[in-house]
């Protein structure tokens, strides 16, 4: 204690140390390995060797451009849908939930006690060609008589939206919950309509939740492959499917590693552009 007392300036660093060590060991070091691997050449039978093989990156972009674009597109649409679906729900729970708040939040989280894979397989049943959903859509002519949902991009995007919904809903709820309702009342006292009060007061105050939610949804969704694998057709495969098959099935580690880096860079660029557009200070409120 005496030591800490004398070197008071050290305290924050000591408190940060476990977290930093964790990041270094489980993020920075593996990332370094991945970067090293992405520049190797050779094949699985004879082994891979480091050779500054920048061609891996070029091939990744040249051959799989479509998959990269599709991944960002699906993740973007799913994020927007999740926002549209979650915002009213989170709003209602935060302002009208009353003493049921915790129970209602539990309802949002409850399906996620079931594993990811099983949840996605459940969608296979929900969207089955002879299932209730498809037959209803056919009855109201939203879907042609031979139409289907499984093995289409609709099913993939729907699956991603569903699977990442809590990552959007919970941060939204937290930021809406913190809003001081007297501010909204004040706006209405000053002759703002309810709609205007929402646009000028509630929405800006909830932006940190919107930004946190969209990032938490978009980033993992762009790398997802389970939904495309189970609910999509080969035309709907995302870059995650390609990386998975390169890494595990073709055992072409350098190609898989370089694709992972390209994906990381693309996501980083998308996130930076987004942060610039809405302003980073909003993230911290």
């Amino acid at each position, binding site marked *: 204690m005496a030591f800490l007392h004398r070197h008071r300036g050290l305290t924050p660093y000591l408190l940060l140390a476990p977290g930093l060590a964790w990041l270094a060991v489980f993020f920075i070091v593996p990332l370094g390995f991945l970067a090293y691997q992405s520049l190797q050449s050779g094949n699985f039978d004879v082994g891979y060797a480091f050779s500054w093989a920048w061609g891996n990156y070029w091939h990744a972009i040249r051959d799989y451009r479509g998959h990269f674009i599709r991944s960002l597109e699906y993740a973007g649409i799913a994020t927007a849908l999740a926002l549209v679906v979650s915002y009213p729900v989170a709003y209602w729970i935060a302002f009208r939930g009353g003493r049921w708040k915790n129970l209602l939040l539990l309802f949002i989280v409850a399906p996620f006690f079931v594993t990811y894979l099983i949840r996605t397989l459940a969608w296979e049943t929900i969207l089955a060609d002879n299932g209730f959903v498809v037959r209803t859509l056919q009855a109201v002519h939203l879907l042609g008589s031979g139409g289907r949902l499984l093995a289409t991009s609709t099913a993939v995007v729907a699956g991603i939206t569903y699977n990442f919904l809590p990552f959007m809903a919970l941060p939204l709820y937290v930021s809406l919950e913190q809003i001081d309702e007297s501010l909204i009342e004040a706006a209405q006292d000053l002759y703002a309509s309810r709609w205007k009060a929402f646009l000028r007061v509630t929405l800006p105050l909830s932006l940190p939740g919107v930004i946190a939610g969209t990032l938490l949804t978009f980033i993992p969704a762009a790398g997802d492959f389970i939904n495309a694998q189970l609910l999509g057709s*080969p035309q709907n495969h995302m870059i995650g499917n390609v990386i998975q098959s390169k890494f595990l099935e073709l055992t072409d580690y350098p190609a898989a590693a370089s694709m992972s880096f390209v994906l990381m860079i693309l996501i980083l660029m998308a996130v930076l552009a987004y942060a610039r557009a809405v302003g980073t200070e909003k993230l911290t409120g």
Partner: protein
Amino acid sequence: MTDLYTRRKLLERAAAGGAVLTVPGFLAACGGSGKKAAATAASSSHKLAKTLRFSNWTLYMDTNNKKHTHPTLLQFQQKYGVQVQYTEDINDNASFFGKIQGPLSRGQSIDRDLIVMTDNSRYPSLLIKKGWVEKLDKNAIPNIKNLQPALQHPNWDPNRDYSLPWQSGMTGIAFNDKLSDPVLSIDDLFGNPKLKGKITCLNEMADALSLVMLSNGDDPSNVTDKTFNRAIAKIKKAVDSKQIRQFTGNDYAPPLAKGDLAAAMSWSGDIAQIGNKHIHWNLATDGGDIWTDNMLIPKGANVYTASVYMNFAYDPKIAAQIEGGDPKTGDTGVYYICPVVGAREVLLKKQPAIAKNALIFPTKKMLDNVHIFDAKALNNQKYLTVWQNLISA
């Protein structure tokens, strides 16, 4: 006619095989429960483990559907006191290899004593080449004499030092007669507009390419760039026109049974085991392919226990039960092609219908119409990459 032919052949083979029976081998197998054996290094490896960890494909073991048990595995447990931890975690060769190659390459155990991989993928030979599988303890497998002669010397393991067949099977086409007219050819499967989006293709390169090459009039046992590209182009066309809904391993079976699929490229025994009277399996009119799944003992496994199990499974009585189940207790079998000589004789007495089922003991006409995929092509990295890119679009 053909049944008689096959039967005589089998009897000849069984007689020839009988001569190979060795006394030491027989003793080794009997000594399985000899726990009080002297504790020398050699005998400690001849001690049975408490559990046998067995990874297999789905629908690949005799099953009692009411009790959800595998009767022959229970018999093994009773006979040897070894509990069988049976996991159906192999859906296709590539993804299973993907799962196990990491630990094996680092010299770690994969917590399995037996795995099953297909000879029409590159993986059995790759596992041997990499030194990731153990040699069989042949002293513990006197029943190896019952192995069908045609399967005794595959080019990737000429003396069966590392592998023993589990089942063979054929690849053909299955269809649901409630949703479709009979689908008997690849051209119909890939071209019939009524089947658009209602069919799947197998994700095993050898299975898919064999059938498509035969439909092109090409020879799948001798793949050239030209015939390869022609087959790929045909499949790609069916993908682009959205005829093919998905590429699958074993997982085509549930949607086919549910009615999401009208037809599928499919493995012979699966359909018999699903037991849905509306789903039929046929060899494609242009021909199909034949393959063999092999039991292998991964590094870090208990070789002796795995070998004792192999011996057990090669007892014709047990093999017959694995194949045909037991109608008395309502057990279903695997209904694939049995590699064990003598099993058919057992079945002829107990369940003649199964013994005469051409899916399990194929007729000569069928065997003449099935081909073995080119082993060179299986290891061609260029082909593998093209294939993988095709199935993940």
